[in-house]
C-alpha cells in the first residue's frame, strides 16, 4: 500500500486535479443540500465530462461530487426539515427541531463533523479491508459472483417499503434494458431491431439520466414547485461544538460508524438504510429516548455518522469484488469501466495504485468538505434559495448535453427522451428507482458469470452445491420472499398473543 503513496500524492500536485476536486466538492454539496437533487444525480450528470480526462482525474472528480453530495444532504434536513436525499431522512427528525429551538448552528456543526468522521474513517477502514476481501474473492468462481450479484439485486428489494412486486418489476426492467445489444459469449443480437445505435447496448447515461434525472425534473414541475421557506443566516457563526459534545456522544458515534460501515459493505445496501438503523439504535441505547424526535443531538450524530460511514463500506465490495454497495457505486463501476478499469480482485494486482487513490481521495475530500462547510456555514441558507424556475431548466440542458457527449449523436438524446417517458410511467406506477439502477449495472456482470458457470458445470444445481454460492443463493431467495416470511411471522406472533 505504501508503495503507491508517491503515485497518489503526485496526483494532488496537479493543479487540474485539485481544481476539479474543489469544484466537484462544491457542486456535490449544492446537489446534496437541495431537496430533490442528490450526489448520485450529480455523478450521473457530470460523468460524461470525465470521458476526456485521464482515469485519476476522473476518479477524483466523480468521488468529489459523490462525497460532497452525501455530506451536503444534512443541510436541507436541518434548515428546512426536508431531507436533501434519502440518506438524511432521519437527520430531519432531530436536526430540524434543533434548528427551530434556535440551535441551527449547533445542528449544522454536528452534521458536518459527523459527516467528516463517517467519511474519513470509513475510507481508512475501506483502504485496509478491501485488499483482504479481494484476497478472499480470489477463491470465488463464476457461481459465487452470480450469487453475489443476485444478493445485491434482491437485498435492495428486501428493504423496499410497500409493494415488493414493484421493486422486483423495477429489477426486471433493468435486466431487460441491460440485455439490449449483442449478448456475451454467443454474440446473439438482442432487441436491436436492425438499428446500429442499439448494437452496442443502450448506454448507462442515456438510460439512467432519462429515467431518473429528466423524468424527475418533469414530474417535480408537474407536481408544482414548492419554493423553500427562507431561512435566516443569523446565528450561523463559529464552529459550535465543544470537546464535551464529543465525549457525551462517543458511544453513539462509534456504534453508528460501525452500523454505517457494515450496512454500506452489504451489496445493494447503502446510506438510505444505514441512517435509519443508526438512528433507531441511538434512540434505543439512549438514557433519554423520549428526547428523540424533539431535538436530541444524538439523533443528528447517529444518522450523519452512519450515512457517511456507508461510503467507505460501499467502496469495499466495489473495489474488491466489482459489486456495488449502493446505486452511486454502481454508477462509479460503470464510469470506471469506461476508463478501462474493471473492478474486482484482480484490480489490486493490475491497478492497485488506482484503488488506493480512490480511498485516499475519499479521505481527502472529507477534509475538503469539512473545511468548506466550516467556512461556508453562514451561506448555507443561500444554497436553499436557488429558484427552481432557473435551476431546473439549466439541469435539463445539462442532462441533454451529457447524453449527447456520452454518445456523440442526437439519436441517443432522442432515446433519452424515450427513457424520460419510461421514467414518468414508472413513477406514476410507483416503481422504485434503485433496483433498476443495480439491475442495469449488475445484469451484464451476472449474465457473463452465469453463462460461464453453465459452460463449466452444465447444470443449475451447481449454484446450490458449492458452499459459498449456495449460502448466497439462499440469502437471495430469502430476500425475495422476506415480505411473505415477515407477514407469516407477524401473523404467528399475533395468534400467539391472542392465545
Amino acid at each position: 500500500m505504501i508503495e503507491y503513496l508517491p503515485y497518489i500524492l503526485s496526483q494532488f500536485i496537479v493543479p487540474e486535479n485539485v481544481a476539479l476536486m474543489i469544484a466537484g466538492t462544491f457542486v456535490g454539496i449544492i446537489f446534496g443540500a437541495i431537496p430533490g437533487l442528490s450526489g448520485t444525480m450529480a455523478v450521473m450528470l457530470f460523468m460524461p465530462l470525465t470521458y476526456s480526462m485521464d482515469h485519476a482525474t476522473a476518479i477524483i472528480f466523480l468521488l468529489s461530487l459523490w462525497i460532497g453530495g452525501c455530506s451536503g444532504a444534512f443541510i436541507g434536513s436541518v434548515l428546512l426539515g426536508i431531507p436533501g436525499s434519502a440518506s438524511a431522512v432521519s437527520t430531519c427528525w432531530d436536526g430540524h427541531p434543533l434548528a427551530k429551538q434556535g440551535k441551527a448552528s449547533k445542528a449544522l456543526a454536528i452534521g458536518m463533523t459527523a459527516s467528516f468522521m463517517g467519511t474519513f474513517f470509513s475510507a481508512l477502514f475501506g483502504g485496509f479491508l478491501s485488499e483482504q476481501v479481494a484476497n478472499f474473492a480470489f477463491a470465488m468462481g463464476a457461481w459465487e459472483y452470480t450469487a453475489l450479484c443476485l444478493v445485491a439485486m434482491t437485498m435492495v428489494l428486501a428493504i423496499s417499503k410497500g409493494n415488493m412486486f414493484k421493486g422486483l418489476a423495477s429489477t426486471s426492467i433493468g435486466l431487460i434494458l441491460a440485455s439490449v445489444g449483442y449478448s456475451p459469449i454467443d454474440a446473439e443480437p438482442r432487441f436491436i431491431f436492425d438499428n446500429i445505435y442499439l448494437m452496442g447496448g443502450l448506454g448507462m447515461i442515456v438510460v439512467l439520466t432519462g429515467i431518473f434525472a429528466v423524468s424527475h425534473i418533469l414530474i417535480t414541475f408537474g407536481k408544482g414547485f414548492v419554493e423553500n421557506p427562507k431561512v435566516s443566516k443569523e446565528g450561523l457563526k463559529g464552529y459550535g461544538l465543544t470537546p464535551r459534545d464529543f465525549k457525551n456522544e462517543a458511544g453513539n458515534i462509534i456504534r453508528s460508524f460501525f452500523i454505517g460501515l457494515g450496512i454500506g459493505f452489504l451489496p445493494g445496501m447503502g446510506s438510505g438504510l444505514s441512517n435509519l438503523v443508526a438512528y433507531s439504535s441511538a434512540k434505543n441505547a439512549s438514557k433519554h429516548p423520549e428526547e428523540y424526535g424533539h431535538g436530541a443531538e444524538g439523533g443528528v450524530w447517529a444518522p450523519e455518522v452512519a450515512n457517511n460511514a456507508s461510503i467507505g463500506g460501499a467502496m469495499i465490495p466495489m473495489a474488491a469484488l466489482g459489486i456495488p454497495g449502493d446505486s452511486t457505486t454502481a454508477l462509479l463501476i460503470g464510469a470506471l469501466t469506461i476508463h478501462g478499469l474493471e473492478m474486482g480482485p484482480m484490480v489490486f494486482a493490475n491497478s492497485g495504485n488506482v484503488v488506493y487513490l480512490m480511498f485516499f481521495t475519499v479521505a481527502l475530500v472529507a477534509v475538503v468538505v469539512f473545511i468548506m462547510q466550516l467556512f461556508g456555514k453562514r451561506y448555507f441558507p443561500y444554497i436553499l434559495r436557488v429558484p427552481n424556475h432557473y435551476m431546473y431548466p439549466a439541469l435539463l440542458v445539462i442532462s441533454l448535453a451529457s447524453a449527447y457527449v456520452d454518445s456523440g449523436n442526437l439519436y441517443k438524446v432522442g432515446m433519452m427522451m424515450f427513457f424520460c417517458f419510461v421514467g414518468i410511467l414508472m413513477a406514476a406506477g410507483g416503481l422504485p428507482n434503485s433496483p433498476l439502477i443495480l439491475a442495469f449495472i449488475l445484469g451484464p456482470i451476472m449474465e457473463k458469470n452465469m453463462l460461464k458457470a453453465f459452460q463449466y458445470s452444465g447444470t443449475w444445481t451447481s449454484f446450490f452445491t458449492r458452499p459459498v454460492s449456495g449460502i448466497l443463493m439462499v440469502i437471495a431467495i430469502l430476500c425475495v420472499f422476506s415480505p411473505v416470511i415477515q407477514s407469516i411471522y407477524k401473523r404467528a406472533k399475533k395468534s400467539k398473543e391472542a392465545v
Partner: protein
Amino acid sequence: MKIKRDQLTGVLLILAGIFFAVLISQFKTPFTASYPGPALLPGIGVFGLIVCGAGIFVNGCRQKDADAVFLSKAGWLRVLITFVVLCVYVLAMKYLGYLIVTPFLLYGLTTYFAKASGMNTRLWVRIVFSIVVAVAIWAMYVPLFGMTLPEGLLFE
C-alpha cells in the same frame, strides 16, 4: 368501475413481458437446461415482468381505497408541454446546433416554469440567464473538456 393505477401498471408490465417474450422466442441460440444462452438474462426479466405485473394487478384489484393523486390534470399538461418542448429542442439542435437553440429553450422554460409556479421574474434577468447559462454549459463541455456539442446540419 374506475380502473386502479396498480391494475393499469400490472397490465402494462404483463404486456411488456409478453412483447419481450415473443422477441426472445426468436433468438437463434437455443435455450437448454445445460446452457440457457442469450435468452437467460432477458428471460429472467420477462419472467419478473409477467409475475410482478400479475402481482401488482391483483393488489390493485384488492385495493379498497381510492388512488392518491399522482399528478393533477394541469400537472400532466405541464409535464406534456415540457416533454414536447424538449423533443422539439432535440430536433432543432440537429439543424441549428446547440448554441443557437439552447438560449431560446432556456428562456422559454424559465418563463414557463416561473409563470406556472406563479413567480414574478424580470424579462432581462431571464434573457441574461438564458444566454449566460447556455454559453457557460457550452464552455464547460467544448473548450474546457474538449468535448463536442451539436453544431447543426445547416452550419456544417
